[in-house]
């Protein structure tokens, strides 16, 4: 955190000044470790074992916040008797379908709900990253559940959890992660003893946890701990994703993701959501409880915002104009499609995949096989110059004179050169003024898209084709100003906020959205940011002039609520759990919820409220159902649906690992997304033969001194000089073993590429003794490429493409490699070296990556990627800038 979020880290230091104890778990000793009280080196990719150990520690010692757990979680809920655990199936859950490499989740349901599982097989969900399409809101399940408040029922979630994690003992943690038992126990103790009625603990994570083939389950395990300890919905608690680029949170709210529309409305699927009603019902689940019940109003208002007068209840608000998904349109699938010639044009905005995305060679070969490529960026980045200045040019795989891609480079205005909002990890929108004019031809994105749309519409004005209606019917009437006719960003924010169509009056709450076409809302969760016609995101009242929640700084969605599920900060009767931690509570005299924050509950619904028989939607939420977006109103320790790789987290080895999974016969995540493509490959891992060809683990992350793919730091002298060369960090032991010398050169070889780097021998890296053997980990920054003041080989060239099934994020934190002293070969000799390694590792074209490595599945190896209902549908040509983030 100190490395990548130094400004946020000031608060950790502040907490430390006040006596907090800081633990840092990381494969290498970082700037964060340097100021932490306790540093725990961990074998990369094994956090679920560590966190599972903490879960076990809590359960075995009954350290959970029992009243909270009983009242607000599904611990007492009874699960179907058809459910079988990984403990029974050697690493698989019940319902695994080897043919699609995915789960039929019906056996994971609550007892009595088996038939409700709308999904029977999740391969398609994976392709469309649909499992978590509601993001923080979870998938609804029917309300009435069977519960055992004593938590003794063998099939209640609590007992299932206990059995599931029973083998995650301190010994096992040591064996899997390389963390000694006493250090582990110190961590577990500190976590548990700083939670409960009087204390809360926050969990902060970032991409060290997400970029794994089991990334989502990392976070799930953290969520289980935080829920057991009563750290959710309470001040000082929570799970915080430290985001990456400014407004990465904003770019999932108003998404740049292919499977989402603004406000987490899912992108319709061509087969499943033929009509507006199909689509809306798939979101609101008629008859179920929770706030998604109103989705029809959100959806209608969104379409109304898009297509204005043309969108009417009669024509389903132009639902037909919405594009549909046909399968996996993720950024990695697209790159493979480019290589296969299925995509011919591409817009690239604010992204540098030639350096930043896994499997750099695939990225560049893909872009080199387009007809045209538009790059809008601040700098001339590698993704715009790959055709003349990439490793593939050196090896002869790309010949500049013959490269067919026509690249258009358009200079972009930076964030200080345009106005707008950033949304950060707390869902806080903060308005940003323009500080300086952009230089030369540089223009904002807003300018670019507005004028591009305007010109396209002008060109198509006379078009008789129905396909052009979607564009021509758009409301496209933003006021502009200045010499370049810059559209007003405030006007856009106003549209996002939503307004009454008849009067133009801005809405002040999403509850005002209507499904009859009388409201237009660009992003329903943002409704209120322009309440009363005032830009609420621009509020900057000093923290000294308001209480500690600082509700008048910026604006947080939803409804300016700073902490979600804050009903849980009070006990079931609505009283604060403790005076110290009081936040939101029921005021019986006033008959309403009150407190420091905007209550995440219906204001006047008393704690004693019980829904009438047959109620649905908001009405069905009981007065003590704190987790209002969940179908059962409870926080899920066990997730009956929504998570594609299991209702509980289980430790799987990374897709590339030198180790056999010490816990299960199942080596790696059986539902991970594997792309079998000639350009892509995975280094062998046990139990496959030849894994010794790539004996070392490498992990890749950030340096404080550089930014991501380097476009914004390698080009800036005061930054570039701080870390002027690509390097690899190795322990003195590994240096001795591999013959590396400090400041000498080394080259690293994977099944995809070979890169070179200067060597830094440092004790900050340490060999780990795990499961009876020594594992060496190397560390690389991924900021280097061929452009800029300082250049170097790209770490991402080493990676292949393997994704988490839920969100299709790449496993780019960890891979296996070999390391050799000296510089790498150049030209064709480089390709020969890689080919030699591939030969020795058995990475032949015929080889298929073994997905299932346990007999428990009762089937052969599974295919990696199949959309069972639309398998035949070929991917469309989509110009889409996707990519996963924290």
């Amino acid at each position, binding site marked *: 955190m100190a490395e990548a979020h130094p400004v946020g880290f000031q608060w950790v230091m502040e907490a430390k000044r006040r006596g907090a104890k800081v633990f840092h778990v990381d494969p290498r000793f970082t700037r964060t470790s340097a100021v932490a009280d306790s540093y725990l080196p961990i074998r990369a990719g094994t956090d679920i074992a560590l966190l599972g150990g903490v879960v076990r520690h809590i359960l075995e010692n009954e350290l959970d916040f029992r009243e909270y757990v009983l009242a607000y979680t599904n611990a007492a809920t009874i699960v179907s008797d058809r459910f079988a655990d990984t403990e029974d199936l050697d690493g698989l859950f019940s319902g695994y379908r080897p043919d699609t490499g995915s789960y039929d989740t019906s056996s994971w349901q609550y007892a009595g709900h088996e038939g409700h599982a709308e999904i029977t097989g999740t391969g398609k969900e994976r392709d469309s990253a649909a499992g978590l399409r509601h993001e923080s809101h979870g998938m609804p399940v029917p309300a009435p559940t069977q519960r055992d408040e004593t938590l003794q029922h063998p099939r209640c979630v609590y007992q299932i959890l206990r059995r599931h994690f029973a083998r995650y003992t301190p010994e096992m943690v040591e064996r899997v992660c390389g963390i000694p038992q006493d250090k582990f126990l110190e961590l577990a103790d500190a976590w548990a003893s700083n939670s409960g009625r009087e204390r809360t603990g926050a969990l902060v994570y970032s991409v060290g946890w997400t970029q794994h083939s089991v990334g989502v389950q990392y976070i799930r395990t953290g969520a289980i701990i935080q829920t057991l300890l009563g750290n959710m919905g309470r001040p000082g608690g929570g799970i915080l994703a430290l985001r990456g680029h400014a407004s990465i949170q904003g770019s999932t709210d108003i998404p740049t993701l292919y499977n989402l529309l603004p406000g987490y409305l899912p992108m319709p699927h061509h087969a499943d959501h033929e009509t507006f009603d199909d689509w809306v019902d798939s979101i609101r689940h008629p008859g179920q409880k929770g706030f998604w019940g109103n989705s029809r109003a959100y959806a209608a208002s969104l379409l109304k915002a898009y297509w204005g007068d043309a969108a009417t209840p009669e024509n389903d608000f132009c639902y037909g104009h919405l594009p549909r998904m046909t399968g996996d349109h993720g950024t990695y699938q697209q790159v493979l499609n480019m290589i296969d010639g299925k995509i011919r044009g591409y817009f690239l905005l604010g992204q540098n995949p030639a350096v930043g995305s896994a499997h750099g060679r695939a990225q560049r070969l893909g872009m080199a096989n387009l007809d045209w490529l538009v790059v809008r960026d601040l700098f001339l980045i590698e993704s715009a110059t790959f055709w003349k200045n990439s490793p593939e040019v050196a090896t002869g795989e790309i010949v500049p004179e013959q490269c067919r891609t026509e690249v258009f480079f358009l200079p972009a205005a930076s964030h200080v050169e345009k106005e707008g909002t950033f949304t950060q990890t707390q869902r806080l929108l903060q308005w940003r003024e323009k500080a300086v004019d952009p230089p030369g031809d540089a223009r904002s994105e807003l300018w670019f898209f507005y004028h591009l749309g305007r010109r396209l519409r002008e060109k198509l004005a006379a078009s008789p084709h129905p396909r052009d209606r979607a564009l021509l019917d758009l409301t496209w009437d933003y006021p502009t100003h200045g010499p370049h006719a810059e559209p007003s960003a405030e006007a856009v924010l106003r549209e996002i906020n939503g307004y009454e169509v008849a009067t133009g009056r801005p809405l002040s709450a999403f509850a005002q959205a209507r499904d009859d076409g009388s409201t237009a809302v660009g992003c329903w969760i943002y409704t209120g940011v322009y309440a009363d016609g005032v830009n609420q995101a621009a509020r900057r009242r000093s923290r000294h002039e308001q209480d500690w929640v600082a509700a008048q700084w910026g604006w947080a969605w939803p409804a300016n609520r700073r902490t979600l599920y804050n009903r849980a900060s009070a006990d079931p009767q609505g009283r604060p759990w403790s005076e110290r931690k009081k936040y939101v509570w029921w005021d019986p005299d006033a008959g309403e919820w009150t407190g420091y924050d905007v209550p995440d509950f219906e204001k006047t619904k008393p704690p004693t409220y019980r829904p009438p028989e047959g109620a649905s939607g908001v009405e069905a939420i009981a007065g003590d159902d704190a987790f209002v977006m969940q179908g059962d109103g409870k926080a899920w320790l066990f997730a009956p649906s929504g998570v594609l790789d299991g209702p509980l987290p289980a430790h799987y080895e990374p897709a590339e690992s030198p180790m056999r999974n010490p816990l299960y016969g199942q080596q790696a995540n059986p539902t991970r997304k594997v792309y079998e493509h000639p350009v892509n490959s995975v280094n062998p891992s046990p139990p496959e033969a030849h894994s010794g060809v790539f004996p070392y683990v490498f992990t890749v992350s950030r340096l404080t001194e550089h930014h991501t793919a380097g476009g914004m730091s390698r080009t800036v002298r005061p930054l570039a000089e701080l870390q002027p060369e690509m390097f690899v960090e190795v322990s*003195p032991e590994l*240096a*001795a073993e591999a013959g*590396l*010398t*400090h*400041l000498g050169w080394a080259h690293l070889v994977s099944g995809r590429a070979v890169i070179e780097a200067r060597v830094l*021998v*440092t004790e900050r890296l340490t060999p780990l003794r795990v499961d009876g053997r020594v594992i060496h980990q190397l560390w690389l920054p991924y900021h280097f490429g061929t452009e800029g003041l300082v250049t170097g080989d790209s770490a991402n060239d080493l990676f292949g493409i393997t994704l988490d099934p839920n969100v299709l994020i790449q496993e780019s934190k960890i891979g296996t490699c070999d390391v050799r002293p000296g510089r790498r070969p150049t030209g064709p000799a480089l390709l020969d070296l890689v080919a030699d390694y591939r030969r020795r590792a058995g990475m032949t074209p015929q080889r298929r990556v073994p997905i299932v490595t346990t007999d428990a599945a009762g089937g052969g190896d599974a295919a990696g990627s199949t959309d069972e209902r639309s398998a035949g549908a070929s991917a469309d040509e989509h110009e889409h800038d996707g990519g996963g983030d924290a």
Partner: protein
Amino acid sequence: MSAPHRPVGDRFRRYRTGRGGGEQLTVPPAEFTSYYGRPVLKPPVWKWDIAAYLFTGGLAAGSSLLAAGGQLTGRPALRRAGRVTSLAAVTASAYFLVNDLGRPARFHHMLRVAKPTSPMSVGTWILTVFGPAAGVAAVAEAAPWLPERGALGVGRRLLPGVGRAAGLVAAATAPALATYTGVLLADTAVPSWHEAYPELPTIFAGSALASGAGVGLLAAPCAQAGPARRMAVAGAALELWGAHRVETRLGLLSEPYRTGVPGRLLRAGRTLTAAGVLGALAGRRSRLLSGLSGAALLAASVATRFGIFHGGVASARDPKYTVVPQRARVDRRAAQG
């Protein structure tokens, strides 16, 4: 663990002291820590021309004394050689000084202030007095070549008197010119210069005398060279005594003066000085031997100046010379409570 790389962070170095003859620091700690072996101080950015300046400045001072002595005791050969050398040397000095500036065009900024805390400022003002005086004195030597009449005739008549006065002014300033440079070097954080502050002016005074004497030996006939011989002896004595002190008294900080290039230069200086003095004494009647001795003394002076200069630079470059004595001081203070 035998790391294949230079250990990062603190680093331990071992060294032995020589026969530390000084009052303290006879047993410096055996180990010291530093930051990647990097210098703690910034070594002087002065280039070779400052070392050369030390020599020419001394030479100018020494020869102006020689000239004044010659003037007062009626040894015209000494006077003439002294005055001419003095002007040449002080001119060279000025060139070296200006040349070494990062911004030579701003030389005159030196004259903005007069700062007793800045030996360079003091030196500037000394030079400002000495230089013109030495110049006038030298120009006066040209009087005999001037025509007898006209405006220049006036010069011819007046010049010798003015020259005599100027020569005395120069001579009066000369000891300051010769010795302030010792303070110039000592008044820095450079360990082996600073700690040598009691000796540096003496060495430089001796070296200046010896080089002035060298000029006398080279230029004057044997009959007039007596004072130059005696000046050589006195100068050599001061120089050798001082050099011996800095090479032995400073404990660890003497090391840079004994080793490496500075060590070789100072040894050469000593040898040449000794040879020069012996030659001067032995060559009372030999113009050739006197001349050779004079040359030896000049060379000795050059060697000594460069030796002292580089010895200091070397002491600033290696952090041990900064850290060890200071650490010893701290420890001693701590021990004293």
